C-alpha cells in the first residue's frame, strides 16, 4: 500500500466526511431538540445539488471561482427557504405529533424527488466545476485533486462556525440546552419555537450547501442523491450519538475515512457494507453512540 494512496484516500475521506457532516448535523440537532425526524432533509440536499448545478451551468459570472461561490450561496439560500416553508407551513400544524410530522416529511421527500426527476430527468447531470478543481496539488509527495481540498476546507469552516454558534449565541445556547434536557428548557418557559425555526433554517441551509459539495465530490447530481446519502448520514448520527454536534463530526470522520479505505482496497461495495457493520458493532458496545446526549 503506497503512501501516496493513503494520503489521497485520507483527504477524499475527509471530504466525504464533510459532506456527511453537513447532511447529518442538521438532522441530528433538529431531532435532538424537537424529536422531528425530517426525512425531507435528503431531498433538500438534492435540491441544493441541483441549484448548484444550475448556477454553475447558467450563471453568467466570471471568474469561475466566483460563480462557484455564487452557486454555494444560492444552494444554501434555497435549502434555507425550503426549510422555512416546511417548518412554518407544514410541520408547525402538526406540533406535538412526531410520527405524523415524520410521515409528512416522508411524503415531501417522495414528492420533491419525483419533482426533480420529472423535471430534470433521473440521469446524472455533470457539474461544471472551476477548472482549478480538477488540477492536482502535491501534498507530502502524493497527488490530491484540488476539489477535495476545497470540500474539506469549506466543511471545516462550517463545522467551526456551527460550534461557535451553538456555544456563543443566545439561540445556540437554547438549542444546546434543549437537546440536553428538553423538558427542562420547556418547563422554564423558554420559547423554543423561534430557536427551532432558526435551527431548521440553518440545518436545511447546510444541507443545501452540502448538496453542491456532494455534486463536486461525485462529479454529478441526481434526484436520488439525497436519499442515497441519507443512509450514511443516519449511520453517522447513530454512531456519533443523537443530538451531539461534535459526535456527528467525529463519526462522520470515522465512517467516511473507513468507507473510502475499504472501498479502495476491498471488493466493490465493501466500504459501504463496513459502515453498516460499524453501526452494528457500535450498538452492541455502546448503544448511545460516541458522544451521545440523548439516550438512543
Amino acid at each position, binding site marked *: 500500500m503506497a503512501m501516496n494512496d493513503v494520503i489521497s484516500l485520507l483527504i477524499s475521506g475527509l471530504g466525504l466526511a464533510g459532506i456527511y457532516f453537513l447532511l447529518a448535523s442538521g438532522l441530528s440537532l433538529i431531532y435532538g431538540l424537537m424529536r422531528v425526524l425530517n426525512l425531507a432533509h435528503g431531498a433538500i440536499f438534492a435540491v441544493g445539488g441541483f441549484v448548484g448545478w444550475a448556477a454553475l451551468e447558467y450563471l453568467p459570472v466570471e471568474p469561475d471561482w466566483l460563480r462557484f461561490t455564487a452557486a454555494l450561496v444560492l444552494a444554501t439560500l434555497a435549502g434555507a427557504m425550503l426549510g422555512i416553508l416546511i417548518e412554518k407551513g407544514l410541520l408547525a400544524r402538526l406540533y406535538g405529533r412526531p410520527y405524523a410530522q415524520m410521515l409528512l416529511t416522508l411524503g415531501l421527500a417522495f414528492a420533491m424527488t*419525483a*419533482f426533480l426527476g*420529472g423535471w430534470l430527468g433521473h440521469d446524472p447531470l455533470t457539474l461544471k466545476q472551476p477548472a482549478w478543481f480538477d488540477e492536482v496539488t502535491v501534498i507530502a509527495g502524493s497527488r490530491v485533486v484540488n476539489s477535495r481540498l476545497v470540500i474539506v476546507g469549506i466543511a471545516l469552516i462550517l463545522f467551526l462556525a456551527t460550534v461557535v454558534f451553538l456555544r456563543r449565541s443566545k439561540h445556540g445556547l437554547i438549542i444546546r440546552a434543549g437537546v440536553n434536557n428538553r423538558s427542562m428548557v420547556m418547563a422554564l418557559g423558554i420559547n423554543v419555537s423561534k430557536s427551532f425555526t432558526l435551527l431548521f433554517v440553518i440545518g436545511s441551509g447546510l444541507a443545501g450547501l452540502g448538496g453542491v459539495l456532494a455534486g463536486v465530490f461525485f462529479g454529478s447530481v441526481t434526484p436520488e442523491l439525497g436519499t442515497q446519502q441519507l443512509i450514511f448520514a443516519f449511520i453517522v448520527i447513530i454512531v456519533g450519538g443523537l443530538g451531539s454536534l461534535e459526535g456527528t463530526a467525529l463519526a462522520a470522520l470515522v465512517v467516511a475515512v473507513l468507507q473510502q479505505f475499504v472501498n479502495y482496497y476491498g471488493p466493490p461495495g465493501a466500504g459501504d457494507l463496513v459502515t453498516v457493520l460499524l453501526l452494528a458493532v457500535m450498538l452492541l458496545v455502546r448503544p448511545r453512540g460516541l458522544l451521545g446526549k440523548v439516550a438512543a
Partner: protein
Amino acid sequence: MKRTAARNVPLAIAVALFAAVPFLSNVSVPLVFDGPLGSLGTMQIIAVGLIFAALAMTFDLLFGYTGLLSFGHTLWFALGLYLPAVLMVGAGAPFGTALLLALAACLLLSLIIGAVALRTSGIAFAMVTMAFAEAFLIFVERNPTKMFGGDEGITVAGSLLPQAVRGVAGIGTVYWIALVLAVTIYLLLRQSVGSRAGHVLQGLKENPLRVELLGLHTYRFRLLSFVLSSMLAVLCGFVYLLVARVAYPGIAGTDFALLIMVMVVFGGTGRLWGAALGGFLYGVANIRLGSMSTAAFGEGLPQWISGPLQEPPLYIGLAVVLMMLFAPEGLAGLIEKASSRLRARLAGSRRGRNSGAAPSGSGGTPGGDGTETALAASGQR
C-alpha cells in the same frame, strides 16, 4: 361469540369478492383495469395487490401494534425473493428445498438482526433497520459474489418452478395462492394481536416502562414481534416471487421500505384491515400508474410541470402530505368515522321514530366496544 361472528362478516364478504374475480371474465372495471376482472392480466395485478396487502399487515404488527418503527422492513420481503432465487438459479436447489432453506436462514437472520437492532429504540431503531436493509441492497447491486444478479436481478425460469404455477396458465394458481396468503396472514396476525402476548405488545407500544415494571422483559417481546413480522414478510416475498418471477433490487432498500410504511399509514395504522387496504391500493395503483405514466399527462404545459406529473411517486408523496394534514388516521380512520356517524344517525332516527324524541347529537356507537369511538375522537384533534 356473537361479536366474533359479526367481526367475520366483512372478512367473509371480502374473501367472497376476491374468490369471484377469476370467474368474472365478462365484468370489466373501466379506468381501473384494462381487461375484464377474470383476465389473466387483471388477476395478476390483483394478486400483487393482495401480496402487498399481506406485506403491509406484517409491517402493521411491528409499527401499529408494537410501536416499533422500522425503516428496513422490506429486507425480509426482499430476502423472501432473493434467497429462493439464488438457491434455485445459482445453487440448483429444487423449489421446495429452496423455500425451506430460505425460511431457516431468515429465521436465524431475523433473530440476529433483531437482537442487535433492538438494543436501540425509537428513531435509532428506525435508522438501524434502514441501514441493514440498505446494506442488503448494496450487496445485491454491487454483487461481489456474482450470485445476486446486480442491477438486473435474478430471473427465475419457469422450469424451476412447480408445474402448477408455471407459464401463463400458472397465473390462475398464483392468484389463489396470493389470496390464501393474504387471508392467512390476516387471521394469523389477528390471532397474535389478540393473544396474551399480543396484549403485551400493545401495552409496549403505549408505555414500555410500565410493561417492564410488570415484570415482563420488553426486549424479548419486541424481538418476538420483530421475528414474527419479519418471517411473515418472508412468506409474502415467496409468493411475490411466483408472480414476478424475478428477484430485483427495486424491492430492496430504503425506498421500498419507506413505501411499505406509506402503504400502512395511508390505509390506517393499528388496524390490520386498514393496513391491508393501503397495501392493496398501493399494489394496484403502482402498476396502473406505472403504465399510465407515458400517457399524455399535462400535455401543453411547460416541462417543469408536465414532467413531474408523469412521476407516480409525486402523487404518492402529495397524498401522504395531505393525509397527514387532514386525516392522520388514514383511510381506515375516515371509514370508521363515517360509519360511526352513519350508525349514530340510523340509531338516532330509529330512536326518533320509536319515542318521538329528537335524535341526540352524542354520536356514540351503541354496541361498540368503545375503542372505535375513542379512535374516531382522537382523529379529530
